[in-house]
Each structure stands twice: as structure tokens, then as C-alpha cells.
């Protein structure tokens, strides 16, 4: 668990550094990939119109990379914090193991959705790329984290009420 969280944080830092180091190259690549697919991005062949469309897509492409960096850093810490709580307070192995597994897998996978979304924008456009990233990554992995957190919250609440009754 700890290794996963640390690797995720390392990925966030490498991603952030690469984003800065290769900003120009990444922007050029994304722009040329978008220009090669005018129908996908609704380009009309008029510079005054298309520049605005390309600008929005490039801003979102950059935002996706930034959000990956941000979420990977944050979720690394969330994995450490929440699995520590689960390991400490979920006494039954039957519930502790799946909660820790869900928190780890969900937390590590969720930020990759932003990286995927960024990569899909030049090929599929903003909305289609977002839909693919949602169904492939954000919903399953984010859902796993949410389910695990509720499960953990329920267990803790159950434990508290049991103790207070006793």
C-alpha cells in the first residue's frame, strides 16, 4: 500500500516536471494531432473561428495534465491516510482487506483518468474524450474509493455505537 502511494506521488512529480520541461513539444503535438482531425473538433477552416476552438482544447489538454499532477499527489496522501485509519480501526480482516484494497486501487487509478483524458482530447475531442475517461477510469476507480470510504465510515460508526452500548 505504502509503495503504491509513494509510486503514485513519484509519478505526480515526474508528470509535473515533464509537463513543464516538454510544454512546447506537448502543445505542438496536441495541436498538430487536432489539426489532422478537423471533423472531430468541429474546425470550419476559418482561422478566426478555429483558433478559439483549438485554444480551448489546448487549455483543457494542459488542464488535464495539471489535474493528473495535482490528483496523483493528493491521492497518494489520501491512500496513506485512509488505509492507516482502516488498518487501525477496522478490526475484522474480512472487511479490512477489501477496504484497503479498494482504497489503494481506487486512489491509485483515479488520477490516471486525467492523464488519459488529456491524451484522448487530440483524437476524440473534449466531450468524447471526457466520456471515455469517465467510464474507463473515473467512475470505476473513483467509485471504488467512495465505496471503500463509506464502508469504512459505516464500520467505524458501528464500532462506536457498539462501544457506547457496552
Amino acid at each position, binding site marked *: 500500500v505504502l509503495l503504491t502511494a509513494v509510486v503514485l506521488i513519484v509519478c505526480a512529480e515526474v508528470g509535473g516536471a515533464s509537463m513543464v520541461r516538454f510544454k512546447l513539444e506537448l502543445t505542438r503535438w496536441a495541436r498538430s494531432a487536432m489539426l489532422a482531425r478537423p471533423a472531430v473538433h468541429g474546425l*470550419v477552416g476559418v482561422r*478566426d473561428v478555429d483558433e478559439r476552438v483549438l485554444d*480551448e482544447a489546448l*487549455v483543457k489538454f494542459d488542464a488535464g495534465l495539471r*489535474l493528473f499532477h495535482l490528483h496523483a499527489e493528493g491521492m497518494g496522501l489520501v491512500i496513506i491516510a485512509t488505509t492507516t485509519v482502516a488498518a487501525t480501526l477496522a478490526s475484522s480482516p474480512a472487511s479490512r482487506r477489501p477496504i484497503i484494497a479498494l482504497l489503494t486501487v481506487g486512489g491509485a487509478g483515479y488520477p490516471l483518468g486525467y492523464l488519459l483524458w488529456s491524451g484522448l482530447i487530440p483524437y476524440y475531442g473534449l466531450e468524447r474524450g*471526457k466520456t471515455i475517461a469517465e467510464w474507463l477510469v473515473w467512475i470505476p476507480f473513483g467509485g471504488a474509493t467512495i465505496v471503500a470510504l*463509506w464502508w469504512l465510515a459505516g464500520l*467505524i460508526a458501528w464500532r462506536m455505537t457498539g*462501544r457506547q452500548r457496552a
Partner: protein
Amino acid sequence: VRGRDVVAGRVSTAIALVVTLGPVEAHHVGAYIPSDNEITTNFKQIKFSVQAGKFDVALRLFDTGPLRADMRARAATLPPRLEAGLRAALAASDGAEVERRLMVFFAALARDLALEAAHQTADPKLSRDVRTVIGQRFLEAIWRYYNLVDFAVAQRDDTTSVAARLAFDEAGGYVKSSGAADPDRLQQPLRRIAQVLAALIESSTPARRGS
């Protein structure tokens, strides 16, 4: 130890509630605020320099900026000597003439976009949704340019300004994202925008004014 457990439990429950009770649309993907393009940026630089009485700065910004390059590139569709006249006005520190020529240039840009929009949104091979999106994007581009000079237009000819804005509003109503979108009716207001602006350019050309 029991007391600590209870506190830790309460804190973690609160954290879990805060984390999970967020809005359903939780995938934050950033917001986009359209920025100026290089032509509108250069226009604003020149305009503010002229307003500040810094004509030497405005002339340098014009000579080295993308606005002049764009004027040259579109010379065929612009009134004759528009660029040379604008440069001469800047050199002569004639603020009113600079404003008039810039107004003509941006009105011409908006006119050409309106004509192209009318042409593209009438394409029967394109679906209704695609034509609606194309219409929205063209209207955004038209407004971005026309909005820069609307005040100057209204000062000279309020009727033209009102007619352009009414036609723009009408066109905007036909490309709303809601189910009321009707790109089939876009042609009329788009052609009206083009006609109104063409008349403005014609009436503002130096030949007509005898300058």
C-alpha cells in the same frame, strides 16, 4: 484508549462524509475563459496608446504587430488604402481617424465572418446539430470583433449599431444549446449583419468622405 478510539472514529466518519458527500458531477476538468487573440490584443494595445496620447507607441505597436500583417493579408476585401491611411493617421496623431479606420477594419472582419457563417450553416450535407455548433462558433467570432468597435459605430451611426445587435441577438436565439435551436433560420440574421456592416464600411470609406 477507548476515548481516543471514539474521537478517531468520529473524525474519520466526518472526513468520509465530507469526501463523499460532494456534488455528483465531481470530475473537475477545469474551466476555460476565452482570451483575446493576437489581433484583438494588438488592437487594444494600439487603442489604449492612442487614448493615452502616446501616438509614437501606438505607431510602433501597429508597425510591428499582427493587426497590420492581417490588414495586409486581407487587403483584397478591405477598402483601398485602409492600412496606409491608418498608419498615416497614427503618424499625424489623428486619434479620430485612427478610430474610424480601426472601426472599418473590424467591421470588415465581422462582415466576412457573417457571410462565411451564412454559407457554411446552409450546407445541406451537414446535420442540424453540426450546423448549430458551427453557427455558435461563428457568432462568437463575429461578436469578438464587432464588440470591439460597437461603441465607435454607435457614436457615428446609432441605427447601424442597433440593427447589427438586433440581428446578432436573433441569430443567437437560433443556435441556443437548448432544444429551441433552429439553424435553418440563421441565414436571414447573418446576411442582415453582413449587409448592415457592408453599408457601414461603404459609408465610412475615405472616398465617400472626400478624404
